[in-house]
């Protein structure tokens, strides 16, 4: 089983709203990731968590706030977003952060900011 589950699949939010994207895996993976993907572009790394601690933050604006409540869950809290933040947000996980550990992706959450 290599399943990463993301909810919701679609989200529309206003620029003053606060919402969250959720991600769950039960593969015993200890590294979890958030990527952002714009149309016709490759996914771009946002955050990496390793053993529930933030390991990498790719200079993401503070209006995106990640949280890893436990080893199976990863959240992305959204506040005061801009229309240009509309994109597909992908969660992923791997056994560990080091190379050689395959990264598995969820189906993504489509975010539209109006």
């Amino acid at each position, binding site marked *: 089983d290599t399943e990463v589950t993301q909810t919701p699949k679609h989200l529309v939010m206003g620029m003053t709203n606060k919402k969250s994207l959720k991600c769950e895996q039960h593969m015993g993976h200890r590294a979890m990731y958030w990527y952002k993907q714009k149309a016709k572009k490759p996914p771009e790394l946002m955050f990496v968590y390793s053993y529930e601690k933030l390991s990498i933050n790719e200079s993401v604006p503070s209006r995106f706030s990640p949280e890893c409540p436990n080893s199976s869950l990863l959240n992305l809290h959204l506040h005061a977003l801009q229309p240009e933040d509309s994109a597909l947000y992908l969660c992923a996980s791997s056994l560990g952060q080091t190379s050689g550990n*395959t990264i598995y992706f969820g189906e993504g959450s489509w975010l539209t900011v109006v």
Partner: protein
Amino acid sequence: LAKTTQPISMDSYEGQEVNITCSHNNIATNDYITWYQQFPSQGPRFIIQGYKTKVTNEVASLFIPADRKSSTLSLPRVSLSDTAVYYCFPRGQNFVFGPGTRLSVLP
């Protein structure tokens, strides 16, 4: 920072073998190379991963020369359902995808 390049697009016909080559000149010693397939509105799907020489699974083969500065994904006998974007992903510390190759399989 390592720069990864791959062809922007490729066309093929059903039943043909397709080879997509990715260049990753600055790959680090410990980096593995992973390839993903992505359909519209879906997340990237793992295809194959390797470190050197040749790796084969039930859907593809991956060829990595001794200098590891490139890798080639080989899809045998493609079908219409293989139309997708294929990403090369030299798995290093920066977790950066290649630009993707849009493969169109024609009948």
